[in-house]
């Protein structure tokens, strides 16, 4: 099946098998390395991307379902060589260790802030429920989201 997708501001048209998962499309066909696979069963959030403005787990969708969509992945966050405030905050607050969950965490965090520019700690923790991190214990991630909220608000 032929699909056309706008990814990080670039148009892609490809013939894909109907059963191809979106995450595999992004990684294998488009050649991205940001969205990761931690489970393939929509439990870990490592594959989180933004599809038409909503954070989705790209392992839970087929590529064909994304036909015509606008997709942003971690690779598309930095603009003009400048990190997105959430990326900057993860760096400053040590919100990552091995970095494997990080692209998904940052996309999920961005979504939390898009919906609610001033989340409480509890709201942040609940907003991150779909994303697992085995390294950080989440506290520095919570700090990063708070710091990003401040930076964006400032």
């Amino acid at each position, binding site marked *: 099946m032929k699909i056309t997708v706008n990814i990080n501001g670039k148009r892609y048209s490809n013939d894909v*098998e109907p*059963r*191809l998962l979106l995450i*595999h499309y992004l*990684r294998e066909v488009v*050649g*991205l*390395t*940001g*969205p*990761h*696979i*931690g*489970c*393939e*069963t929509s*439990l*870990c959030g*490592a594959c989180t991307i933004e599809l038409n403005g909503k954070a989705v787990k790209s392992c839970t969708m087929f590529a064909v379902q994304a036909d015509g969509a606008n997709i942003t*992945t*971690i*690779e598309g*966050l*930095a603009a003009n060589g400048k*990190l997105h405030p959430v*990326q900057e905050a*993860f*760096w*400053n607050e*040590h919100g*990552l*260790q*091995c*970095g*494997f*969950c*990080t*692209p998904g965490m*940052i996309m999920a965090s961005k979504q939390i802030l898009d919906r609610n520019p001033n989340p409480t*700690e*509890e709201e*942040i*923790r*609940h907003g*991150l*429920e779909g*994303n*697992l*991190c*085995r*390294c*950080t*214990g*989440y*506290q*520095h*991630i*919570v700090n990063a989201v708070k710091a990003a909220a401040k930076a964006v608000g400032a």
Partner: protein
Amino acid sequence: MATTITKTKTLIGKAIRRREDPRLITGTATYVEDIKMPGMHYAVVVRSPHAAARIRSIDTSKAASRPGVVAVFTGRDVSNVGPVPCGASLPGLRVPHHTILATDRVYYAGHPVAVVVATDRYIAADAADDVEIDWEVLKAVADPVKALEPGAPAVHPEWPDNKAFDFHQEHGDVEKAFAEADVIVKQRILSQRLIPTPMETRGVVAEWRAADRALNLYSSTQIPHLLRSMVAQMLGLEENRLRVVAPEVGGGFGCKLNVYAEEALMGFVAMKINKPVKWIETRRENYLATIHGRGHVDDYELAATRDGIITGIKLRIIQDLGAYHQLLTPAIPTLSVLMMPGLYRTQNICADIVGVFTNCVPTDAYRGAGRPEATHGIERMVDILAAELKMDPAEIRLKNFVQPSEFPFPTATGLIYDSGDYAAPLRKALDIVDYQNLRREQAEARKQGRLMGIGMSTYGEICAFGPSPATPAGGWESATVKIEPSGKVTVLTGASPHGQGEETTFAQIAADELGVDIDDVLVVHGDTALVQYGIGTFGSRATAVGGTAVYFALQDLKAKIKKFGALLLNSDDVTLANGQCIDNKTGASKSVQEIAAASYRAMQLPPNTEPGMVSTHFWEPPNFTFPFGAHLVVTEIDRDTGAVKVLRYVAVDDCGNILNPLIVTGQVHGGVAQGIGQALYEQAVYDENGQLITGELMDYAVPKAHMMPWIESDHTVTPTPVNPLGVKGVGEAGTIGCSPAVVNSVVDALSPLGVRHIDMPMTPEKIWKLIRSAQ
């Protein structure tokens, strides 16, 4: 001549943000799965669905004939490949022959049986389903206690008692201690099986370069060099023609401190098909076939005087080994024995381990590896003793600590504790929570019928593995430091970090020692073609051992810089400071950069000095280090649901000197998260047929953000005399200190109901039942 003056550097101890992060936060880092090669094929491993079964026959014809499939290999095809190695040795240890693919029998659900190789991962997965195996299902045993019962199914038919080894250690006069004790307390304490769950599963890419007879192996591993030595042996390759690369590694926690069947298997496949091959473990496979941790049934007895002095400890460990020995499997419980006295002075100990085979995936090192079990045991027992004697748990600990004046302190288990003030973190933690007041609050809460608990643990751990004679492989670590002709500094470390931030901490060390800008330092690791032989990152050793190797390599270079500086300045009295070699008489100076350039240009050489500015150091530590600390946890239990709420979590850790507080705090948080996971949520559950019930993230409860309390992290600082950096290690401290503090807190909360002990994980269901049965 004018020189660029570099600013005084004091990076050590600064919370500088990590230098590895830019690639990680932009999604441009290269993990194994990100590696692509022209002509790359995909492999899927076919695994046993049964915990114990005989293979009557395997039919691969249907799989092999599927379009896109290039090869299918079974156990017979790989009979020339050496067994999966066990690096641990114990007297009388029974070592099952562990082939990389099963031949006529499988021993656990998930046991690799065949491998299917195709041009595409979807095709490989389809074809894996086409492999037809005729099984004769056998009786399995998954519970180590049942495995010891007479008549239990034999995991390995040649050893019907299911015992892999018996281990005994004794010191002092235990029988006398128990005979003369005023009080003896006993308890069976479980440290349940856990699944390490790094967010990146394992993965391997293998590339055979036939013309060179050379194999490149990219693996998500903590130990690229050790892996190279062992895989070379398994495949019969010359070691210098095998290059192992640990690219970006997405967490390990011990489970990637190993040599796995699939690592050699992919090398074999690449050589056979003469094409690059990639295998990425699914999460399901990760749960079935990557090592688990813990798996202890511990029987403790403590002897004490009426006033709470511990006079003897007896411990019997039943260690669930699983079906095979992976790299360190049988050695892990011996670490529990080493640390069984905790921070306490008693010299009378007696320990027995029985290592038991079960039809489960092997256990091995998981964050803490034997020390969380030991700490959990002794810290639970001290609380049980305190309760028995109606003493305050803080008071009883303070009475039994090794005292600051007693270091170096020889323990009953043959270790030499390096340095410490064990009361200091406990007192600090008590101060932070205002302990006396907190106890009054608790008394109030109890009057209102609330179940509030205060629990603590004072842990000690053994780190910085280790002196070579005490470790299965070498216990040293290596570093090469090069100052390039341009003055840029490259550090090559044999420790292969995977999230611990050594690209930053080691750069801090180098920048400080040389007085250069940290941006001029690059830390390289994880590639056996680039880095001199090394050991790896595990056992909280990377900075304490690897960082020290860097430090000593830098000392060599500093001496050389001074020699060249003296020559260039025509002086016999120079000092090196802030990146400048200064003539003490005239004040003239040359920068490190200028001197490095001159050392390569080599127009003039100091006497007995070679050109260039490179030093390699292999540092052998004279002892382990022993970090310690106190964790204090306040909980409240919901009577109606049994849910445990952590109201406060205070961690006061002493890991010696702190090079980067940001990174250290991150390690504490992550460690505590895994301790909380064990205390409250996680357990690998096998049913009686050896089926893994918690076989997915859906069923295995890795803590999520909302399941974690806020952690108040603080420190005391007692530098170790073992290394010149004074660092002890912090990677596992959080995990080790955590679980007993949480359990002690919950037991304290429920003590008005007569509860004396609870085993982990303390799920709401378990707590609810306890509350019910008490009413």
